[in-house]
């Protein structure tokens, strides 16, 4: 398989304190696969993916090569990069409430985003958006598009984001903890939609999460990060069933403890 994104020697550091946040991390994303980045809070997962989009705050500097389809993103001008964001690289954030503009209805925001990247007529954009929203199990898209973000639930907003991704058909979707802020039921639905999304548009995905259960369900490959370093990477099942690094084992075992207890009660497994 071809690599769609190659990250080489990525370093991110704080200008003020000089503290290194990401140390020399390199990884590849294969075309059509889903790479999960796991780690505890503060391990640098989010900073890594924001570095790929070059969305980190100005007090963070980055170096290294981020090669997307043969182009080095790290050397593009801001203007060229902006064209790439959304169209080629699409980001889905943790909190849908803050990802949408609270002062206008969701539809306005969606139309603006689409107008930025395509020269579709108003009608065409709307039709495409609606069919995408229906495909992520959002019934009655017209009504949803005329609502404000605070009138919708977190799970719905997250699914709207996925619908937008379907319309944009990006090459890479970067999802930063998209299910963390959700309830059990909406989490289940959103994860389902993520799996569908990959099947439908065949894009590659970087999925950041600290929930190993979700990662196991969705990802092909896993990167384990700790304190800004990648300490282990490889095939999902291999990592989870036979981790080599102590820290990965520790992460897996704690998650197992929680899950096994639950399975015992539910009378499954064992």
């Amino acid at each position: 398989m071809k690599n769609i994104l190659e990250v080489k020697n990525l370093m991110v550091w704080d200008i003020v304190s000089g503290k290194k946040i990401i140390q020399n991390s390199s990884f590849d994303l294969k075309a059509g696969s889903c790479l999960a980045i796991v780690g505890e809070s503060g391990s640098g997962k989010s900073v890594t993916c924001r570095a790929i989009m070059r969305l980190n705050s100005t007090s963070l500097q980055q170096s290294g090569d981020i090669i997307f389809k043969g182009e080095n993103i790290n050397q593009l001008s801001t203007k060229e990069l902006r064209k790439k964001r959304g169209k080629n690289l699409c980001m889905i954030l943790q909190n849908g409430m803050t990802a949408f503009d609270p002062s206008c209805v969701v539809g306005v925001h969606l139309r603006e985003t689409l107008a930025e990247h395509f020269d579709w007529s108003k009608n065409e954009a709307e039709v495409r958006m609606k069919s995408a929203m229906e495909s992520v199990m959002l019934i009655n898209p017209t009504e949803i598009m005329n609502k404000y973000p605070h009138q919708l639930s977190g799970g719905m907003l997250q699914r709207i984001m996925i619908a937008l991704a379907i319309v944009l058909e990006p090459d890479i979707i970067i999802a930063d903890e998209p299910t963390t802020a959700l309830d059990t039921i909406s989490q289940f639905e959103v994860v389902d939609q993520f799996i569908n999304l990959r099947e439908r548009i065949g894009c590659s995905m970087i999925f950041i999460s600290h929930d190993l259960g979700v990662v196991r369900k969705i990802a092909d490959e896993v990167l384990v990060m700790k304190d800004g370093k990648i300490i282990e990477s490889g095939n999902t099942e291999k990592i989870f069933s036979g981790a080599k690094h102590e820290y990965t084992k520790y992460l897996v075992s704690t998650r197992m403890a929680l899950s096994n207890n639950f399975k015992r009660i539910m009378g499954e497994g064992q």
Partner: protein
Amino acid sequence: MLKVDKVQKSYKKNGLFSSERQIILKNVSLECRSRECLGIIGESGSGKSTLGRLMLGIEKPDCGTVLIDGMNVEDRRVRLGNISAVFQDYKSSINPFFTVEEAILEPLKIQNKSKKENIDKITTLLNQVGLPSSYRNKYSHELSGGEIQRVCIARAISTEPKCILLDEAISSLDVSVQIQVLELLKDLKRIYNMSYVFITHDIQAAAYICDRVIIFKDGQIEEIVEIEHLKDVKSVYARKLLKSLITF
């Protein structure tokens, strides 16, 4: 021991003069037995946190009562030392101007004990929650989320209350730290003979620690079930909830 009796709570929808009210809790009755860990599981917006606030006496119910050992929790003298809490947001759980010691001392001070007794007590408490006693002079921003929650637990058990309410106390922590905190809570329960009311949306965590869970939906109790019989839940919603769970 902690008894919620036919409690109802609603908020005014908009403005002072509107009569429209949004009902958050509808006729909720439940009881947390002594030395029991009672889980309250619900989605966001189900009213479980409001129920928590009523149980702590921070807010007053429209009708119905919350009693601890037969006394109303609305009276703050009843609450003194008898009931305590740990909240979700570890960033705002401790006053930023307070050291760990000052934070733990706050509830202790009311008990009119000598200063030295209190200082000794803090050392014991910190050790019990697995922190070195050198942490007493630290500020909350110098601690990690798990450590802050440990301090909050130490603060909650300092008065040796009969009941501690844990409102999403572990939800914002990493899974690996969650386990540590849950184990700690289990140990402390054995030492102090307390009851827990464990409010969460995370069924697996609830299953780990609780003896009995209440499944809560739209301000009403959907089902009360012993944890061993969790797999035999009857209501449609509870079944859906369990089915949606992504296990590892």
